[in-house]
């Protein structure tokens, strides 16, 4: 029964792509939660939607739209911060405005391209059916790149995230790291969007990391647990969606959410 899953190439692709997305989302998400940049991450995910819609309209690869627009968005956020508004609080109103515009433009582009409703749904809420072997190759390359970059900056980024003043005094380039990390987040949400859709990126980016931080205060262990959770809920979600024919965005998010609630309840009880 379970082995039936792998009889189809599209399911094999979905499992590979889902696993890659889960791993990078968990690793990057652990830092997103630590740095409290979930709002910025959400915006980068959302502006991928008009990107993907534009790509569909003009006949470019959808992945291109997912990567290019959030990448530009991350650069714009970095440039905005460069003018001295260093802390995230200042930018929330601007970012919120951009989010609204991004969704509106995305909807317009989807309408213009006469794409059917399910295409728009897939962009927003995810799909595991149409993942091509090319997409898997791109995701693998992007995933390896993200993991290499993250392992290079892991400690200085951790330092700058929890203790910016001391890190700066020690010569850690915290501004450059913040910019680099935002670009990494953009690449991550672009990759993950292709599985979960732009709206449900958080299922893999934030929920496993938040759950892991409930379970342990050790950084290394926290990242590892987040990865295990993200991969587990992705596999369970894919299997359920295949068997029961329910949307992948729903299954993955529900499993992740259920685990989060369970861990929260248990840690309350343990106290």
């Amino acid at each position: 029964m379970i082995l039936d899953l792998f009889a189809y190439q599209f399911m094999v692709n979905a499992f590979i792509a889902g696993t890659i997305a889960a791993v990078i989302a968990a690793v990057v998400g652990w830092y997103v939660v630590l740095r409290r940049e979930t709002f910025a991450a959400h915006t980068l995910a959302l502006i991928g939607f008009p990107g993907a819609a534009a790509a569909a309209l003009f006949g470019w690869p959808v992945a291109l739209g997912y990567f290019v627009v959030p990448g530009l968005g991350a650069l714009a956020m970095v440039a905005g911060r460069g003018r001295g508004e260093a802390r995230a609080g200042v930018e929330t109103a601007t970012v919120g405005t951009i989010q609204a515009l991004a969704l509106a433009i995305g909807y317009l582009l989807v309408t213009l391209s006469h794409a059917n409703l399910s295409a728009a749904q897939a962009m927003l809420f995810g799909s595991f059916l149409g993942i091509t072997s090319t997409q898997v190759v791109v995701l693998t390359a992007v995933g390896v790149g993200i993991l290499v970059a993250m392992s290079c900056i892991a400690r200085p980024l951790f330092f700058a995230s929890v203790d910016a003043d001391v890190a700066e005094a020690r010569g850690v380039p915290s501004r450059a790291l913040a910019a680099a990390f935002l670009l990494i987040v953009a690449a991550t949400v672009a990759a993950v969007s292709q599985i979960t859709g732009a709206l449900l990126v958080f299922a893999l980016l934030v929920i496993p990391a938040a759950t892991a931080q409930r379970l342990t205060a050790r950084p290394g262990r926290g990242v590892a647990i987040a990865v295990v959770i993200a991969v587990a809920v992705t596999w369970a979600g894919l299997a359920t969606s295949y068997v029961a024919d329910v949307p992948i965005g729903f299954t993955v998010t529900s499993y992740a959410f259920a685990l989060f609630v369970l861990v929260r309840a248990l840690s309350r009880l343990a106290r």
Partner: protein
Amino acid sequence: MSTPAAIRFRGVAAGWHDHAIWEHVDVEVRPGEFVAVLGPNGVGKSTFVKIVLGLVAPTAGEVRVLDVAPGAANRRIGYVPQRRNFDASVRVRGIDIVRLGLDGDRWGVPLPLPWTRARRREEDARVRRAIETVGASAFAERPIGEISGGEQQRLLIAQALVRDPELLVLDEPLDSLDLPSQAAIAALLGRICAEDGVTVLLVAHNVNPILAYLDRVVYLAHGGAASGTPAEVITAATLSRLYDTPMEVLHTADGHVVVVGQPEAPHGDAHAHLLR
């Protein structure tokens, strides 16, 4: 004058070119001294610290720190900045925060390879030693957001100590701590200075918790600074001259000093400057 000064300011000014927050400051701190930088709110005490660390450039004068230009020797300096409270949502252990003082600026991730085992053991021992020095072993494994302000401050001092610095720089380390914690942290810093020979430079607005341990105070004012032993500097004559306004220094029976008067702070700070 054989050994070079730990910190030397000659005619230093800070601020902007048309608006100095303080100027004509001369200070010389000898190695192993315990020094407090005092002055009213808004006088630029934190700026003094940032110049020592090379994070802010002075607008005039010459600064030497550990006999090199400021910023060039920051690996030999432990720094505890102002007001860092980790709230309850920070799920990172104290010991991890301490460890960042040792390897937080290193790129890459440490892999558990056999040939790095000796080094990892040595680093673990250093982290443990720093935590023992500040008496934080009992709570170092707990998430830092869940422990008290005094306990957090101990761990932040351990983080600053973990590389065995020659100079320890602390910006208002006693701020927002309860009185017993203030006394305990002051005693800890006094011990680190006396026993380990670490030069301690501490910014404070209340001199009393640290008075017993001080070798030297630097009183900052708009026009300049007064530097010397507490007995020389914390006097009515010196402070009245420095702030150009009548000031009184009262000594209480339990050895505390109270400074009464209203020095003009540059940012319109009209608080009575009371050192209880």
